[in-house]
């Protein structure tokens, strides 16, 4: 873990590089920025949106900053809020939104996973068999998602409708699922036993070490195959689906399920990211402001999560998802001229 001093050094390094870059820019081409901005403003003003080009990174930063605050409060990944809301409200192609959503989910998961592993909440013995299956299906999902939008002129509208339907499914899963804090696993299936799917962590609210074991690995593998495909196709982290499978089907305590889910997201999304990179679906113009926004917002959200009432936050997120689902379905149907 980075200490406070290392963080200050890290941020100082970033500021230094930026200042050096800005100084270089002004020294080499004193008028280029102003001229480029002027031209861009004129060009963009001619566009129907009427929004200056340089406003987009700022809007994205603000938008993802708010998502970053909400995500840790609600326990969902940033991608599951970013992808549907951006599809509904922003002018980007769904390809770029999925690419950015995937990189955001990847960054969040990579940042959180090492801490979870050190505390015993996530374990590579549990993660490895599940990822072996879901990584293949997430790659296939990424291929299919990009193929649909490029092979069929109307493909993006079907993708948008499908995303809305997936969100409706997430909404109902969240509505009906119960968070089982410490499920009781009396007996492990032979496969889970052979792979020693068990562990322990220190639970501060109880002041003691909790030991756990998982079961029903074959059913879990089937579920993770389906989840991986959807995650890769829509550029989602799929924490919303990993957690119920680990918690409700395989018997992982809720904290272990959340932590293991983050590690699985990190591995799956890292594999799926190459598809998006190779197809040019990752634009730094969209990704960089989004990653900075969600990273900074998540730090504030994590602090607020301690004080906020979980029930209120859950209702808030479910309301957002329902709205986004409806907007995406309507947008897709309009694109197909059905309504």
């Amino acid at each position, binding site marked *: 873990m980075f200490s406070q001093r290392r963080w200050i050094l890290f941020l100082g390094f970033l500021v230094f590089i930026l200042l050096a870059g800005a100084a270089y820019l002004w020294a080499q081409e004193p008028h280029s920025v102003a001229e480029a901005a002027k031209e861009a403003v004129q060009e963009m003003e001619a566009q129907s949106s009427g929004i200056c080009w340089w406003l987009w990174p700022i809007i994205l930063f603000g938008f993802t900053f708010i998502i970053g605050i909400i995500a840790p409060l609600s326990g969902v990944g940033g991608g599951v809020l970013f992808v549907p809301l951006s599809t509904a409200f922003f002018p*980007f192609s769904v390809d*770029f939104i999925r690419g950015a959503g995937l990189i955001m989910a990847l960054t969040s998961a990579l940042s959180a996973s*090492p801490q979870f*592993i050190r505390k015993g909440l996530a374990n590579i013995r549990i993660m490895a068999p599940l990822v*072996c299956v879901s990584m293949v299906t997430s790659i296939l999902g990424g291929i299919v998602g*990009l193929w649909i*939008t*490029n092979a069929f002129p109307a493909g993006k509208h079907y993708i948008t409708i499908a995303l809305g339907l997936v969100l409706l499914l997430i909404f109902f899963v969240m509505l009906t699922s119960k968070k089982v804090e410490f499920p009781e696993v009396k007996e492990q299936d032979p496969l889970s036993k052979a792979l020693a799917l068990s562990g322990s962590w220190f639970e501060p609210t109880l002041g003691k070490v909790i030991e756990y074991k998982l079961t029903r690995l074959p059913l879990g593998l089937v579920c993770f195959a389906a989840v991986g495909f959807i995650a890769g196709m829509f550029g989602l982290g799929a924490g919303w689906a990993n957690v119920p499978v680990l918690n409700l089907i395989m018997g992982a305590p809720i904290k272990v399920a959340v932590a293991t889910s983050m590690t699985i997201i990190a591995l799956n999304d890292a594999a799926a990211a190459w598809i998006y990179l190779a197809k040019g679906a990752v634009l730094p113009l969209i990704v*960089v402001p989004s990653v900075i926004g969600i990273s900074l917002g998540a730090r504030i959200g994590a602090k607020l999560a301690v004080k906020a009432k979980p029930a209120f936050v859950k209702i808030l997120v479910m309301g957002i998802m329902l709205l986004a689902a409806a907007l995406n379905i309507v947008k897709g149907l309009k694109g197909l001229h059905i309504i």
Partner: protein
Amino acid sequence: MADKNQEVYVDPANLIFARAMEIVTYIGIAVMIVFGLLYLFGLPSYVEMKHAICQWHHPVGTFWHNVVGIHISGYDWFLKNLACMDCLSMIGICILALAPFVAILAAWPKVGATHRVLTLLFFILVVEYLFAILKPIILPGVGGH
């Protein structure tokens, strides 16, 4: 804190995996953000921002055709333009995407010493990762444009 660490046993393979993932992640984030911000501040770029914004409502294939006039397939579009800030930012994203792969390779020796089945699973993961990375090069037409 000391009590917690004494009571919970985390095996060395997990610790190495976490450490390797953490280091590579920080490097990737730093590279992506630093060069990405320099790109946003107007330093030399492969994709001009104002052109990108005018075209970003198109699917990726049409976008790249209209903005740069190329057909994107593989990684050479950013690997051959490393003097451009946006392409350097893409290198940061590649480093991020490599973080779990590096973590698996780093933890592999420790895993092998304790758990044979896990060694096999790690081998499968490495093969899957390599396929994910190389697929756009060796099978560029499959499932794509």
